[in-house]
């Protein structure tokens, strides 16, 4: 990856080191006492050996107080003293150990989500403690304890239940209050009402009454519901952190040159139009800018879907997010970061996703139907009993509460989250990360799949499609040259000839933005841009061949003819199978691409997709997706680039490959890892099975209500019946949802799981781990797993 221009090395390196250090300080936060904490993201860490290697490796750096690796979040926290004078270059220290790492900037990521999980867990623990103890006491009451003991037990139950349900019920009370103050009803309203009413009546009952109390019902209700709530939260949190692990965050700053030509690290927000910034080869351009000096090739594929690299020369405008490939560039900032291309894409995306929030989740749809029914039935039985008993409000209230508790959507509240959590786990193992349950619901209903081309249907790497002219010998030389470069087009040319028998080239030089030049048998040879190669070629061969839509890389020996390698982007290996599979599932397929018509049509023809649109801007893609939705279609959008982000947000549901842009991943509902597309049909299958299971769960829960509600309305419900109905229906719903683990089991997905947990520190990295670790026959822990 690193730049190979090794002239003026010491100066450049010192500069880079200083900039890296400034970047490190900007991302660290002060722990007080002269101690700084820096968090690093190490996506590839995955086993006990990794933890040990990282912690001891970083611990040996001078000034480091301690390093603690967190395997669940794949993060390492390093506490260090900047004044100890150590070389605090943790990222290169980690890469020396064989781990790729990036700085984890707290400013960019809300850590609030972690806290909600923790709060839910505390509530769950309190509810569980209270439910278990009260249940123990209640069992002896039900078993027929004498009146005095019964009263004592009821009082103790009350002492536990009141504080426990006030504390553990907070998530529900808050959400119910929020819904009520917006004049809506959600599932939490009847829950809160039932818990609080039952609590109030039971307290009265325990103190003055002689009826049974509902303490165990209200607390175990909270316990079951909190389980569902926590699982739902865990699913989202796991997907969120998994997606975060993949991200190489957008550059949070740039090296700015001041008037004296001194470079310094500047945060993104402080860059002003007119500033001069440096972007090294292999880095992304942080803001919209114009090339001031330097010559290079840039890769715009993530930005606009163009598959071919473009030459960058002074005067060219480049968008934020473009990858600089071959040479260092000096750029003049055109717009501040908040007005950059990326920022525009984000605002388009926000607009699109607002339109998308119309989707009402199935749980809320059910709640909207169910909650009023619960309240009406309960109120009706209160009024009915008042009339029938001639104003005995006490008995009537008791019956009304029994109805509320029995109908309380315990199994109903578990029906959706349990099924979705099991499905998300099932997909997680196959390398598909589900961001939330809504994505699964929408995926089950999708009937149209819209693909982006570059990086989605294709790998985003060019391959040779055709070779025009040239002898075997020339192909072999071109192949040798191609192997010496990192430019994608040149790498593709390397495949021009299978072997390279006895080809020797010397004086190889890579010229940024032009290509490679070398000497073969005393003659100059060039591989690269047509116009540049033509300078040394025979003059009569200068006429370009028929203009082909795909890109090309040319080769010539001084005085010889031009050989042209026509390049095109290659399809993913399983694209054809997946397209067939999706058709069999009844999907309509379409391609929307930012690339030119030629390559897009070629891909469409190869896959047999009739509708393919090319040269689209981000807004065009969104328009098309919204057009489809206006026709009543439910759109699944599969895309990876920055230019796809608005369309990903506009579609009903979207999937992005893990290799795509950060923003693409952030706006997609599902993210899949691995080289293949086979995750798409599997995800659809699991989503459809999930929606079937959810409906079955509703059926089970409602079936219980159909039996229990009449009992409650007639006044026969006892706390024992309520407890039995509640637990058994919940268990049934959970058991039914676990069946989802079996869906699509027979289908092997491309090595997706493996790519999440692949070992980066292959054998060659091991010796650097530390001298003490060199026992050659040390058993590898992975083998045990």
């Amino acid at each position: 990856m690193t730049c190979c221009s090794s002239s003026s090395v010491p100066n450049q390196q010192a500069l880079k080191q200083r900039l890296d250090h400034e970047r490190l300080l900007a991302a660290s936060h002060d722990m007080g006492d002269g101690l700084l904490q820096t968090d690093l993201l190490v996506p590839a860490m995955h086993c006990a050996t990794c933890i040990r290697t990282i912690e001891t490796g970083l611990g040996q750096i001078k000034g480091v107080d301690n390093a603690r690796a967190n395997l669940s979040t794949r993060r390492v926290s390093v506490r260090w003293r900047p004044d100890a004078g150590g070389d605090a270059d943790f990222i290169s220290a980690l890469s020396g150990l064989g781990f790729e790492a990036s700085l984890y900037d707290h400013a960019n990521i809300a850590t609030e989500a972690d806290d909600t999980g923790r709060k839910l867990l505390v509530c769950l623990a309190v509810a569980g403690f209270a439910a278990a103890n009260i249940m123990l006491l209640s069992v002896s009451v039900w078993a027929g304890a004498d009146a005095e003991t019964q009263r004592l037990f009821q009082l103790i139950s009350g002492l536990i239940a009141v504080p426990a349900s006030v504390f553990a019920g907070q998530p529900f009370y808050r959400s119910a209050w929020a819904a009520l103050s917006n004049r809506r009803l959600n599932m939490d309203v009847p829950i809160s009402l039932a818990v609080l009413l039952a609590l109030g009546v039971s307290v009265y009952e325990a103190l003055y009454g002689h009826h049974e109390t509902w303490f165990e019902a209200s607390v175990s209700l909270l316990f079951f519901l909190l389980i569902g709530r926590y699982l739902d939260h865990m699913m989202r949190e796991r997907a969120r952190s998994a997606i975060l692990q993949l991200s190489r965050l957008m550059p949070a700053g740039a090296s700015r040159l001041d008037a004296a030509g001194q470079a310094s690290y500047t945060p993104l927000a402080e860059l002003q139009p007119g500033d001069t910034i440096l972007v090294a080869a292999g880095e992304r351009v942080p803001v919209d800018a114009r090339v001031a000096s330097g010559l290079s090739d840039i890769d715009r594929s993530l930005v606009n879907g163009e598959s071919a690299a473009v030459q960058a020369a002074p005067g060219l405008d480049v968008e934020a997010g473009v990858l600089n490939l071959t040479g260092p560039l000096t750029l003049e900032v055109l717009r501040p970061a908040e007005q950059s291309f990326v920022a525009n894409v984000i605002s388009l995306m926000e607009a699109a996703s607002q339109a998308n929030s119309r989707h009402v989740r199935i749980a809320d749809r059910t709640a909207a139907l169910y909650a009023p029914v619960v309240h009406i039935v309960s109120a009706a039985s209160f009024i009915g009993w008042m009339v029938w008993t001639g104003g005995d409000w006490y008995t009537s209230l008791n019956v009304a509460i029994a109805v509320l508790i029995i109908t309380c959507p315990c199994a109903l509240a578990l029906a959706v989250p349990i099924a979705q959590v099991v499905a998300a786990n099932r997909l997680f193992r196959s390398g598909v990360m589900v961001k939330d349950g809504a994505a699964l619901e929408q995926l089950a209903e999708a009937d149209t799949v819209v693909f982006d081309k570059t990086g989605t249907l294709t790998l985003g790497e060019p391959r040779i499609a055709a070779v025009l002219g040239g002898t075997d010998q020339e192909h072999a030389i071109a192949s040798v040259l191609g192997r010496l470069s990192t430019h994608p087009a040149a790498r593709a040319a390397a495949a021009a000839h299978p072997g390279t028998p006895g080809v020797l080239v010397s004086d190889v030089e890579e010229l940024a933005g032009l290509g490679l030049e070398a000497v073969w048998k005393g003659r100059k040879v060039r591989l690269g841009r047509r116009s540049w190669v033509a300078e040394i070629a025979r003059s009569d061969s200068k006429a370009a061949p028929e203009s082909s839509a795909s890109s090309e890389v040319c080769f010539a020996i001084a005085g010889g003819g031009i050989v042209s390698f026509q390049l095109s982007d290659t399809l993913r290996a399983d694209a054809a199978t997946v397209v067939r599979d999706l058709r069999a599932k009844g999907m309509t397929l379409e391609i929307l691409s930012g690339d030119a018509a030629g390559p897009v049509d070629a891909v469409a023809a190869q896959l047999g997709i009739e509708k393919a649109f090319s040269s689209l801007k981000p807004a065009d893609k969104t328009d098309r997706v919204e057009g489809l939705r206006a026709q009543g279609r439910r759109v699944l959008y599969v895309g990876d680039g920055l230019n796809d982000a608005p369309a990903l947000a506009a579609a009903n549901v979207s999937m992005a490959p893990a290799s795509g842009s950060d923003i693409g991943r952030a706006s997609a509902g599902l993210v899949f890892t691995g080289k293949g597309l086979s995750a798409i049909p599997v995800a659809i299958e699991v989503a459809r099975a999930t929606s079937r299971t959810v409906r079955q769960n509703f059926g089970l829960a409602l079936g219980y209500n159909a039996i229990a509600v009449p009992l409650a309305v007639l006044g026969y419900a006892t706390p024992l019946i309520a407890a039995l109905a509640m637990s058994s229906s919940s268990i049934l719903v959970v058991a039914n949802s676990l069946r989802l683990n079996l869906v699509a089991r027979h289908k092997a997905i491309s090595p997706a799981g493996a790519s999440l947990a692949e070992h980066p520190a292959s054998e060659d990295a091991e010796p650097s781990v530390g001298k003490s670790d060199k026992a050659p026959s040390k058993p590898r822990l992975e083998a045990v797993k």
Partner: protein
Amino acid sequence: MSHLVILIPIALGLGALGLAAFIWSLRNGQYDDLDGAAQRILEDD
């Protein structure tokens, strides 16, 4: 009856102790990295 007066507080006290221990360990960050804890046990320091 009289034995209940002793037994119930003991039962509740033990339960509350467990709850307090759980909440303490949660706040102490012991549940932050369950995957890591599962792996660390394999390393002998």
